[in-house]
Each structure stands twice: as C-alpha cells, then as structure tokens.
C-alpha cells in the first residue's frame, strides 16, 4: 500500500464577514482528498459550505474543517458565515492529499480552547497505517507567522486583518505506521495572546483488505518473512534479510490466555506468539546459489548468514493480498528468531515473541508499603515490564536519577531500592491512611493528587517529603559545582481550579508542584509551578540561590498550565556547567529560555543537600515524573522526554486488584509474576501480532471497539464444518479461592532474628539473614549494639555481641564492633559485622534474647479463602467444585470477585467450537486475532449469530494454501442478575474507565 502524499494547498481567502471561496489546490487528480479549513472570528458565528463537503472537525461552530474526495468536477467551495457581524474576519483555505484509500472518515479528533499566544493541539492515536494527521489552529488575533507543531509539516498560516483580524494555521503528518501523534503547539510570532482553538484530526486511510479477502478467489502475494541479521535495518527484498523468498510452508499461532485454571481452560496455549517456517536455500545476486543445507550450515563461510547468531535477530511475517489498491499486507507475527535448524533438505526457522523472551528474566519488585505509597497491581505489572525492557510509558533517559511513572504507586522505578525510612515514608500519601487515589493518566494510571481541605483529611493524596529526603538514584550531581544541571519532566493534569477557587481555599500553598534542592550551605535550585499569587498562578519557574545563599535569580514562564482537565507536558531544565548558563521552561512543547549568568563557585564542590532535601511535592494529578542529570539534562543537546519517539511495548487496562503491600520475598520470572495477576482477575494476557504485551482485564471487554463484529465464519463461504460442542467436563459451580489475606501495620516489630554459636573473626563479615516475617520497611540500617541488660527491644533493630559463644563473656560495645544492614528486600537482609576486637565475636547473650533483632514494618498474611456457589447449577447437576489458589490476591474483595467471576464463567455449559487441540478450519485471513468478536453461520449446526470470541488463532500457509484454524467460545447471551456479566462484559467496578483518547 502506498503512503499518502501531500499534493499542495490553494490560495487563502479572507473577507470581512462575507462568504469566501478558496481556490482548490493545483495538480489534483481524481480520488485525491481535499480538505477545507475555514474559520470566523466570532465565536457565535456558524459556518455553512457548498453541498457535498463533509465536516471532519468542528471546533466550536465558527471554525471547521471539511473533506471531500476530488472527482475532477467540483470547483472551489464557498464557505458562508452566519450569526456574526461586520468586523468578524472570515478565512478559508484548501489543501489536497493523495493516497489509495484516503477517505474523509475521521479516526479521532481532539480539540482544546485556550487563551494564549501559541495554539496547543492535543495528541491523538491512530489505529490504522497510512493515516493523515492534521493539526488545526485558530487564534482570534492575527500574527506575523506561525510555525508548525513540532514533528509536522506546515501547510500554511493564513491570517488577515480584514475585519477585526484572526489567523488560521495548519500542518500535517503523513503516517506510515499507526501510532501516537504527540500533541504540540503552533508557535506564533506577532500579535497578542487571544482566544485560540487547537485540534488534531486523524484522517483514515481506509483498507480494502477486508472487502477483498471476503470475496471469492483471493489472490495472495508471496508471504513476507523478514529479519535483520546485522541489526542495521531491513536491507531490502532479495537481500539476505529477506527470508520470504526462501520460505515454503509456515505457521504462526496466537493464543489468548484466558486466565482460567488449566483444568477448565478453553485454551491450551500460553499467550505467546510462535512462528515456524521451512526455508530453502537462496540464490544470491552475486553468487551461484546455495542449497538449504549449505546456506544454513553454521560452518559454511561462504554463506551470507555465516557468523550471525540465529536466536537473536528480529523476525516479522506479513501476509499480502492483491487488492484493488494494489498489494496490501497485514502483520501476523513480530518477534525474534529462536533457531534455524537443518531438517533434511530444508531448514526449519522458528521464532517467538521477543517481548516474551524479555519477560523470562527474574525480577523482584522493591518493597512497597501500600498504606503510604499505594500498591495497585498495576504498579507491580508496570515495574516487572519496565525491569524487563518492555514499557507502558516512556522509559528513563540516560542520566535519569528519579523516575516515578505513578502507575498505581508513588514508589519510583528509579531508584528502585527498598526504603528504610523511620517514622514515615518519603511518600506521605494520606499519612498512612491507606487511601491512595489513582486516575487515568497520559499513558496508564496517574497519581490523583489533589489538595484537600482539612475537613477532608488535610494533606491527603499529596506527595511531600516530610522530614525525609526524596530518593535519587546514582548519577551525576544536580546541584553542586561537580554538576549544576538537571531536568525535571512530567505530565501534569490541567486541574480546573485556580488558586482562589480551589476547594476550601488553598491555605498556604505556594506551589502546585515543586522540586527543591536546598544545599547545606544555603545555595539552592528550586523549580516547579507557582501558586498563591494570582498573577503567576499555574506558571512554571526555575530559581537559583547562589553565592552561598547571598544572591538569587528567578525565571518564570509566561504560559501557565491551563484549567482544561487535560494532560500537559511540563519540562524544567537548567545547565550551569562550563560556559553554559541557561534555563529552559517547556509547556507542551512551547519552550522559553533564560540566559542569565551566575557565579557557581558558591555551590558545594559535590552534592551536599541540607537535611531533608531534596524534596518533591505535587498537588495536582501527575504521572511520568523524571529527574535527569548530566549531559542529557541539556535540552539544546538532547530531546525533551515528550519529543523522544516512544512506542508502547505493552497495552494494559487498569487492574482491579489492589494490594496491601508489595512484598515479594524472592525474584520471580517477570512473565509468571504478571501472569499471576492476570489469573487472579481473569485478564487476557498475551503477546499480539505486533509483539505488544496485552494485559486486558474485564474493563477491556466493555469498550465499544470490543463489541464490533470483526469477521464472519460461514460454512457456505469460508469455513469447514463447525464442530460445536458443550464440554460438560469444564462445568464448575462451587468455587473456592484460597489466598493469603494480607495486613499492613503502622508499627514496627521484630521481623528477623539471629543467634549463632559460630564465631566471627576480626575484620568484615557479611551474611544474608532471611526474615521470619516479610517486611516492607526496615527501621534504620545501622544496628544499635545492646548489652542485654535491660528490656529486650521489640520495635527497634539491635544486636548483642559477646566474646563467648554462650553469651557469658563480655558484651561488646560500638567501639569494638559495628553491625550494619547493607541491603535488604522483603525476604532477607544482608548483614555486615565489622569486628574490630582482634578476637572472635559471637551473636549471643545469656538472657534468652535473640542475639540480633531486625525491626521493620511487617507484611502479615493469613491463609484463608473465599467461596461462591451457583445453587441453581448445583441443584441440577450436583456440586462440582473448583479449588483455586491465587498468590496475587491480598484482599478479600479481590478473592470474592474472582470466585464470583469463575462461577459465572463456569457454572453453566458454554458452547465452544474447537477445543485445546482442534479447531475450525477457515480459509486464511491474517487479520484474525484472539479476542475478536466474530459471527458464525452454519446451517448444519444451527449457528447463526455474532456472539463468539476467538480464543486461538493458528495461521498456516504454503503457497496458495492458507488456512486459519480458530477455536471459538460463545459469549453469554443473557444478563445474569447479581453476577455482573453480560456476555463477556462487566457491570460494576472499573467498567467506566475513560479512554484517554476517545473520551469513551
């Protein structure tokens, strides 16, 4: 399929409140898409256009974009305003695009109104390849010029002073691959801040694949199988990266792991896409050609693939079809090679999901105290993904010293160590009231921090450091002579209240968000968003205090974060290293700078923060917070976070599981760890055709897109006989969910003890002490030595060291030995003894205490269960039990929900087509994916409706023989009152999650 082209724009047309007729662009051809962009200065005005044009974006009635497919006949349109008056400037312009399949269908439109100099356009995400993304901007004031939104190409910036003036500006992006089109601003020069409207429109590139594959007699293109041996990009067709030219038969299998226990699962696979293909040899352009045995022999030095590893190169497979628009390909597999093995006269290529392999590594999330930090399952899943190199949101940049995505906990990913705060965590969420709030963020979840009046609990849901400094990971200094540069970036919510109307007033709040780096000698770097003063309310700032506190420079941006309930990028950076003396403020891509020089000699030589600093606080919803140090902190040399291209490696709906704590006592395979949560809420967990990890919980199935029937399986058109059956062996009507009920504690207690008759020789000795009770916080890392003459400590860490193994010798004091906790995790602590006595020492005493007691906040668990029974089902067929043990559930509500969902899923016979080992054979269609809703029609079995979901999809091709074998499961056709399901939809918690793109 060809990518779309920009053909050109016609001349602009302006008038003082009169109809305008902008010329069509030159060089148009039949089938081109013509877009008309028109606007009137008066917000009360409405626009009408010549018949035949369709509205593709309506930005308040007075600014609209229209589309029409050129037929070589129609002429320049006329746009007529109404509802205005003389002085209301009218402007319009046309532009044309060419591309097979371009239609006036709009994928997504997002608009925003604001009063500003520049014009902000929100981001959109497209779902189909080859779309045209249009950025549209209007301002109620004219200008000298306007620059395109970053990353797009300017169409034009027509403006006029006919009437009281206005300006239009538009730019475009021609997408090859579907994905996100970031938001950004038209940077306007000249004129004044005024009312603006910005919109982003994605125009569909219609595929005719569906229509073509549904017709009789499809004509297939050779299957594309591509790799990248040298990791330098695909070299092109007929090169050694082109495996399709060698391929004979091939197969790709996708499973939907439905999360059900194996004994009742309808799917045998594990949610991992796998590929297999037979390869022959390859004739090379400059060589004689090699047989498969020669070409793939690891010993043939004349083979083009000699020396390349055969288990790491990436791999894709696309199935192509001749359509009326030319060959069109659909991706069926993305992953990496697993092996190429010689089998007789051919070679067997195998591939597997690359992200699945990434998730094969062991991860151990740090301890997270849910009471203080929040601990939704989302955070654990996002952490396990990120630790494996698969990201839900933009990853940390080089030099990052703090990264908190806020995906269900404020605990950062960087640093990811276990915390040892005493008397409160850095994250003072709700002061330990276990009431963290999370909302839909720009990428996944976001921390729903909002300033709360005292009557509602005071500083609830608000990050502050308290008396404990904000943790920073290793890296270059941020606020010293060794490194006086840094960058703070985040997405922050345009909260719809300003200072004066904030709920119950704002008290003494002076900043909405703030990153303070106060040094012990009085110097400081302070940045954030101002509050308190009305004139600068919501505006970003960067201040430095230098000369050991004697001098001060401030820099406040002119653009504040609007009150529009949208997510906005906020970036603040400074660089005072070498000859650099510069500060940057970035709001949604609009960058302001300041070059005021200062003397940096008063800053400490190396990082030396004052007590309880640095600090970070925020009183608005926020997500994706990063602090970067070093060279990458300078935006002149390295891009802002928002400008770094990012394609999510995972797609996730918010989890329903809320944890008490995150207290993993040992490393676990990331895939298994995430899968345990999926099983605990019956979420679909799989790697899809693009190798994107999907974690799709019940909320996924209620979205409108999942109610769309994506294809027909019809024994009269494309399918073999349908083996419909009800498998009574999978019926379960009495469910027991066993789980470990967890409890958090605000109090410290002894969580680990040690005594030993083994002597510790002089010098340093390190050993690992397993904790008797998993802990989510240890009380200090320095161990107090106790002579065991008083009362045994019960909530502080202590050690009794003695010169004799039975404790009857001399107790050792701090001058003779030092005991430290070097590191810890919820399951163990690493202890170091520095024996300075010159003789053996023993962890011992003669009063019966444990010789070493580690104090911390425990993660208590109690094994229990939840059960649910379908009495009606049990009455007719007897009790059929399903005992399930889930390790990912910590709260009773989550266990009960799982029991209920299992009951409603399994208590009645469900019709399935195909089982774990067989399926229904359908003529090939590469678009089929597990989870899709399909219609099935078969006169023999009487099936004729559209309530079926694909469970397994196995593609198999060889020449013109292309089959897709699917297993299909019937969705429940009735509403079961009290059990919360309509088909595969959910009524209840989380069913109203808002899609940040569609607003649905």
């Amino acid at each position: 399929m060809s990518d779309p082209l920009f053909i050109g724009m016609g001349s602009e047309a302006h008038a003082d409140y009169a109809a305008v007729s902008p010329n069509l662009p030159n060089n148009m051809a039949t089938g081109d898409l013509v877009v008309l962009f028109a606007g009137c200065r008066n917000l009360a005005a409405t626009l009408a256009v010549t018949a035949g044009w369709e509205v593709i974006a309506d930005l308040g009635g007075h600014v609209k974009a229209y589309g029409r497919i050129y037929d070589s006949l129609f002429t320049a349109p006329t746009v007529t305003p109404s509802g205005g008056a003389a002085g209301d400037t009218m402007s319009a312009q046309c532009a044309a695009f060419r591309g097979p399949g371009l239609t006036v269908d709009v994928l997504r439109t997002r608009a925003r109104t604001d009063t500003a100099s520049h014009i902000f356009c929100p981001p959109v995400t497209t779902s189909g390849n080859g779309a045209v993304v249009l950025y549209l901007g209007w301002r109620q004031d004219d200008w000298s010029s306007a620059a395109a939104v970053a990353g797009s190409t300017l169409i034009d910036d027509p403006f006029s002073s006919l009437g009281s003036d206005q300006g239009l500006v538009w730019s475009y992006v021609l997408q090859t691959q579907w994905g996100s089109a970031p938001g950004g601003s038209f940077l306007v020069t000249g004129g004044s801040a005024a009312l603006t409207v910005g919109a982003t429109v994605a125009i569909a590139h219609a595929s005719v694949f569906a229509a073509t594959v549904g017709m009789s007699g499809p004509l297939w293109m050779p299957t594309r199988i591509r790799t990248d041996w040298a990791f330098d990009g695909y070299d092109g067709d007929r090169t050694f990266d082109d495996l399709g030219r060698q391929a004979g038969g091939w197969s790709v299998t996708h499973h939907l792991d439905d999360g059900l226990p194996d004994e009742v699962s309808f799917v045998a696979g594990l949610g991992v896409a796998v590929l297999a293909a037979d390869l022959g040899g390859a004739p090379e352009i400059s060589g004689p050609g090699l047989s498969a045995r020669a070409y793939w022999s690891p010993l043939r030095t004349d083979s083009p693939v000699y020396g390349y590893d055969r288990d790491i190169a990436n791999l894709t497979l696309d199935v192509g079809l001749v359509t009326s628009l030319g060959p069109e390909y659909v991706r069926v597999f993305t992953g990496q090679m697993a092996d190429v093995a010689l089998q007789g006269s051919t070679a067997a290529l195998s591939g597997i999901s690359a992200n699945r392999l990434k998730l094969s590594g062991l991860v151990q999330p740090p301890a997270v105290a849910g009471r203080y930090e929040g601990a939704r399952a989302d955070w654990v899943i996002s952490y396990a993904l990120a630790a494996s190199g698969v990201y839900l949101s933009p990853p940390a940049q080089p030099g990052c010293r703090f990264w908190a995505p806020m995906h269900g906990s404020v605990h950062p990913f960087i640093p990811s160590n276990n915390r040892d705060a005493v008397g409160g965590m850095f994250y003072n969420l709700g002061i330990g009231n276990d009431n963290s709030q999370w909302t839909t963020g720009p990428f996944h979840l976001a921390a729903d921090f909002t300033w709360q009046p005292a009557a509602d609990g005071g500083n609830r849901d608000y990050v502050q450091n308290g008396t404990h400094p904000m943790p920073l990971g290793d890296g270059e200094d941020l606020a010293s002579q060794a490194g006086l540069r840094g960058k703070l970036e985040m997405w922050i919510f345009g909260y719809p209240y300003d200072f004066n109307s904030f709920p119950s007033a704002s008290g003494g709040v002076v900043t909405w968000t703030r990153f303070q780096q106060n040094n012990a000698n009085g110097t400081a770097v302070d940045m954030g968003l101002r509050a308190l003063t009305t004139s600068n309310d919501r505006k970003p700032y960067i201040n430095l205090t230098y000369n050991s506190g004697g001098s001060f420079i401030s820099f406040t941006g002119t653009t504040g974060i609007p009150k529009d309930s949208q997510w906005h990028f906020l970036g603040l950076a400074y660089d005072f290293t070498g000859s650099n003396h510069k500060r940057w403020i970035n709001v949604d891509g609009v960058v302001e700078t300041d070059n005021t020089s200062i003397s940096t000699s008063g800053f400490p030589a190396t990082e030396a923060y004052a007590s309880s600093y640095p600090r970070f606080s925020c009183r608005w919803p926020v997500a994706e917070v990063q602090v970067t140090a070093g060279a990458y902190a300078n935006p002149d040399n390295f891009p802002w976070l928002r400008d770094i291209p990012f394609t999510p490696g995972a797609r996730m709906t918010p989890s329903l599981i809320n944890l008490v704590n995150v207290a993993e006592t040992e490393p676990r395979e990331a895939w298994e760890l995430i899968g345990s949560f999926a099983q605990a809420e019956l979420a679909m967990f799989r790697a899809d055709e693009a190798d994107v990890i999907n974690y799709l919980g019940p909320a996924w199935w209620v979205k409108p897109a999942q109610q769309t029937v994506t294809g027909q399986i019809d024994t009269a058109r494309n399918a073999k006989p349908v083996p419909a059956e009800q498998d009574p062996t999978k019926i379960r009507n009495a469910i027991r969910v066993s789980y470990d009920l967890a409890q958090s504690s605000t109090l410290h207690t002894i969580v680990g003890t040690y005594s030993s008759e083994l002597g510790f020789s002089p010098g340093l000795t390190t050993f690992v002490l397993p904790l008797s009770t998993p802990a989510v916080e240890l009380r200090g890392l320095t161990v107090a030595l106790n002579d065991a003459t008083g009362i045994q400590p019960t909530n502080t860490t202590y050690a009794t060291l003695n010169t004799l193994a039975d404790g009857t010798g001399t107790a050792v004091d701090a001058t003779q030995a030092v005991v430290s906790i070097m590191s810890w995790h919820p399951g163990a602590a690493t202890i170091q003894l520095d024996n300075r006595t010159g003789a053996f020492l023993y962890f011992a005493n003669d009063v019966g205490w444990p010789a070493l007691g580690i104090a911390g906040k425990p993660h208590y668990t109690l094994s229990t269960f939840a059960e649910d029974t379908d009495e009606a089902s049990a009455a007719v067929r007897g009790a059929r039990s399903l005992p399930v043990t889930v390790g990912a559930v910590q709260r009773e509500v989550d266990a009960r929900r799982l029991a209920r969902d299992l009951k409603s899923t399994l208590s009645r016979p469900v019709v399935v087509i195909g089982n774990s080992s067989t399926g229904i054979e359908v003529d090939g269609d590469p678009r089929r994916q597990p989870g899709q809703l399909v219609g099935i029609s078969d006169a023999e079995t009487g099936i004729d409706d559209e309530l079926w979901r694909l469970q397994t999809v196995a593609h198999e091709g060889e020449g013109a023989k292309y089959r897709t074998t699917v297993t299909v499961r019937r969705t429940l056709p009735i509403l079961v009152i009290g059990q919360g399901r309509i088909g595969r939809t959910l009524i209840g918690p989380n069913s109203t999650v808002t899609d940040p793109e569609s607003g649905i």
Partner: protein
Amino acid sequence: MTDTSIYLGRLGSLTTPGSLLVVPHPREVLQSTRARLLDVFELGAGGARVDQMVGGARTYTLPYNGLTMATFARLQAYADGHEGPGPFVFLDPGQRNMLPVDMSAATSNTNGTDAFAVTGTGCVIGSSSLITDAGPRTLRWTFNSAAPGSGAALTPVWPSSTFAYGIPVVLGRPICFSAYVRGGGIDQIVTYTPQIVWRTADGTVVSTTSGSTLTSDNVDFVRGFVTGTPPATAVFADWKIAYTSGASSGAIGFWRRFMVNEGSTPDTSWVPGTGVWPVKVLNLEEGWLGRFPDFRSGPQFVLQEDTS
C-alpha cells in the same frame, strides 16, 4: 521472429561465443507450461473456495527422440554440474515478450506499482483503472511539476534476485523494447524517449541505446520503441522511458503493453510476458539402445524456472 534458437548457458556466457549452448529443438512438443499455485478449499456447506498465488513459474520439458553423444554431453554438463551449480539462463523463443507479468501487464497483475520506479521532480506513478480496453489497469505517470528535470524517467524494478538488472542478452542478437502511452490530466501532450540500457553482470551501465521520441496523444495510444544489439560486454538489457519535454504540472501519461521481444522491430501484436528467470535442470533422462552406446535414445531434458 528472426531467431528461433533455444539458448542455454551460464549468466554471462551468452555474450561469450563458444560457451553458449544452442539447444536442439525437440522433435516433439516443447512443454513450457507456467504453473500458478491454486488451492481448493472445500466449504463446510459444500462447494469450494479457490485461493491463488500471484506468481508462477514455468517448467520446460524438451523431449528428444535421440541425441548424439556430443550434443547430449553438452546438456549433461548442465545437468550434472560440469557447468557449475547454476542457475542458468534459458531463452525460449516461444516466449516473445520477455518482460515479467506485472511489468508487461502495466500493473494489472497486482494493481500495484512494485514493478516500476519513477524519478523526477513531482513525478508519481500509480495503477490506474481509468482505461480498461486493453486490460484492467494502466500505469499512470503523473507530473506534478512543469519542470520534472532532465533525469525524469520511468524504469523497471526487476523481480529476480539473480537476474537483478534486466533480461540476459545474447551477443549479436538484437532485441526491441516497446510500450504504448496515452495522454491525460491537465496537459496530455508529453514527449518521451524509450531507451535500452545495457548492463554488466553487476549492473554497471555499458551503454544506452535511445529510440525515437514519441509524443503522447490525448485520444489514442501511441507506441514507442527502441531496438538495439547488445554491445560486447553487456550481460543484461534494461529499459528506461526518459521524459524528454512538454510536461506541465498535472500532465499524465497512461502506459500499457510493455514488451521486449527478440528482433530489430517491435512485434506487431503485443503478447503477455512472464519474464526470463533463472532455470535449474530438474531432470535429464538418459538411455541408449543396445549396440549404440554413443547415442542417447529418448532423452528428456527438464528445466525449472527459479522465481525467487
């Protein structure tokens, strides 16, 4: 048709006198069927659905009553590896149009433009269904600039990984490239120059032969052609249609019936082409009558096109 010889040889040897094998014509029918993969999918409700692949490949079967040992030995050298591993060039005089399917059919096979490339400022090609009297599609060359530049040209994209630079040529054997064009768009009168580009085995241009210019008409298709005899070092014959003059922004040329035929003039009638592809020897049946061991009786020489 001036040369009915059947040629077989290594790539490059066709331009080297003495190493070129002129294969004897068989007494019986030379089978050259081009197979396209089909799959019949039997439907659950009865009936069938037929899938097909876009490509195809010929199998050449040359049945002989008998061959002398000397002649047989030259075929045997290809069959048994004495002429190297191949693949080999096989020029069938029965295939008059030597261009591959989607090229000769002007995009009608796939509705896509993968067989063609265009250069020049503002030049765009597409597969057009506007004119259907000689096939469902034509290749549309649109000029979006009145100054496409002197280098503006339409060129082929050869589909074979082995014959990557054109059609293998035989020293002294002329060939002719031809195609038809009709004007369209804003300006329907544009002048073009058809060319044959002679190339070495690695694609290096040896020389270019230009034909007479042709000017598109706004009503009828006009044929342009160029004839040439391969220079001594040429291995491949490539073609080009160069823009010469006359384009205005919005001009369109609809191209169809591309053909390369053997001879010094374009064939009167266009015929479908399926391309000249490398071949490998699939089989050479061997046997001799008693008392005549130096005479091969009833050999059958089978070659298979390799279209990868």
